[in-house]
């Protein structure tokens, strides 16, 4: 088989169905961009989980003087030194606890200043308003309940907060988004495949004369089908390339520039370019193979060989 002959046939075919080709390219591009985006979102969530779960603490916030007046949990007054020692001793005896650290009101103020230094809220805050706290690191982050039942409601304890709970809400949201993206991708992919099947049907019909003659002079089935399959593959590959572009541009504008999440959420380590780049071959391969397969099966129905 001569490559040049086949290639020219593909070019003719794609140009003849320009509008259909365009529709195929766009729908493949969108579905694959959603697919890649969803994969990246998963990676982001799991890297964030690994990073944050290591750092999450259960915080036992202690009552300060301001709380004693305003917070019903602290109605018995600010925490005393004995109460603090007791909490520390109790924590030391618990088997689920890995490490306990104490944060004074001054330290809390300093951390707050570091994290939110520029916000107007920070400037109105004084060290007196900050709470002392015990930061408890658990051997298993899931065992938060044990700490909560032991210390919630104790005199001098304002509240017990599990940072993992807050994180889980965030991760749940992100995971939900990536699942939604997958569903949308599946839908778009079905649309794309239906378009391809239809394109193949139309072009098989418009080229029935050529294919009929090919059959008569003894062209093999593969030779007759190849241009159709290659057309679908080329259109799919174009879609895949567009999807890759969308992913790269998407990362650039969401994380580095434009939305610039990397500046706004500087606590989170975002995925690097390498994470995006490693997804591209998969996206391209799917963009190439799915349409080719769809065309192959469509041809079995619409093209007599």
């Amino acid at each position, binding site marked *: 088989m001569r490559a040049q002959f086949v290639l020219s046939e593909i070019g003719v075919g794609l140009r003849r169905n320009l509008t259909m080709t365009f529709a195929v390219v766009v729908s493949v591009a969108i579905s694959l961009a959603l697919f890649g985006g969803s994969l990246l979102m998963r990676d982001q969530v799991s890297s964030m989980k690994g990073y944050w779960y290591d750092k999450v603490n259960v915080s036992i916030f202690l009552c300060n003087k301001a709380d004693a007046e305003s917070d019903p949990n602290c109605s018995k007054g600010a925490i005393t030194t004995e109460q603090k020692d007791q909490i520390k001793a109790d924590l030391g005896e618990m088997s689920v606890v890995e490490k306990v650290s104490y944060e004074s009101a001054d330290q809390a103020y300093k951390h707050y200043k570091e994290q939110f230094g520029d916000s107007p809220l920070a400037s109105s805050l004084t060290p007196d308003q900050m709470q002392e706290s015990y930061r408890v690191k658990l051997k298993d982050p899931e065992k938060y309940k044990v700490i909560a039942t032991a210390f919630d409601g104790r005199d001098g304890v304002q509240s017990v907060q599990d940072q993992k709970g807050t994180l889980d809400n965030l991760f749940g949201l992100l995971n939900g988004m990536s699942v939604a993206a997958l569903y949308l991708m599946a839908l778009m992919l079905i649309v794309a495949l239906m378009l391809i099947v239809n394109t193949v049907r139309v072009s098989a019909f418009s080229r029935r004369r050529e294919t009929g*003659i090919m059959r008569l002079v003894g*062209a093999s089935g593969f030779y007759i089908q190849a241009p159709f399959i290659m057309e679908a593959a080329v259109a799919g590959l174009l879609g895949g390339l567009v999807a890759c572009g969308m992913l790269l541009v998407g990362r650039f504008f969401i994380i580095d520039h434009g939305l610039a999440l990397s500046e706004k959420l500087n606590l989170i380590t975002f995925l690097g370019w390498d994470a995006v780049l490693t997804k591209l071959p998969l996206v391209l391969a799917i963009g190439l193979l799915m349409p080719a397969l769809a065309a192959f099966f469509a041809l079995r129905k619409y093209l007599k060989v």
Partner: protein
Amino acid sequence: MIRFDNVSKVYPKQNRPALRDVSLEVERGEFVFLVGSSGSGKSTFLRLILREERCSQGQVHVLGKDLARLSNWKVPQMRRQLGTVFQDFRLLPNKTVGENVAFAQEVIGKSRGEIRKSVPQVLDLVGLGGKEDRMPGELSGGEQQRVAIARAFVNRPKLLIADEPTGNLDPQTSVGIMKLLDRINRTGTTVVMATHDQNIVDQMRKRVIELEQGRLVRDQARGVYGYQH
């Protein structure tokens, strides 16, 4: 070359068989006319030889192969040894005469050098030397049919199937086409031609096979058209 053993063909959803219990043999190098009124089974007969259809009963052998046992992917190989010519020429209107002939070689993977050599040769043979770059639409019907014959013959088939090749042509042009087919036959190629053209059959005095309502009713060496329609 061709052998039919008790061949019947029933198309799906049709009660009346298109061919009923047809048995015959065509030897290498023969020239055979296939006659019969419309709907007598001529086209079915040719489609079975080309394996566009499979027979319902009996056996069809072409070029020594049992077509019922020939697997689908081997059919193209078999068709390369056949040439086909039709009433409606079946040329590609957007390709030149030369490209149309070359198409038959390109699709079976002949090298460009071979194609460049054989296309002018075969066009000379059919009397269209030097018209390689013309478009089919610029040619007369007779010339277009010559292009179709060149395409059918360019791969030097052992068997040429012609389905009413003169059906769209005036008598004088038809004679020219018949002379050409006769010449091809003399090179050793077996020719099977379905036709309604009484004059041609009567003039050529070749073997005549007549079908009527799917049955073989006459098989006559050096026969004539023989029935009124």
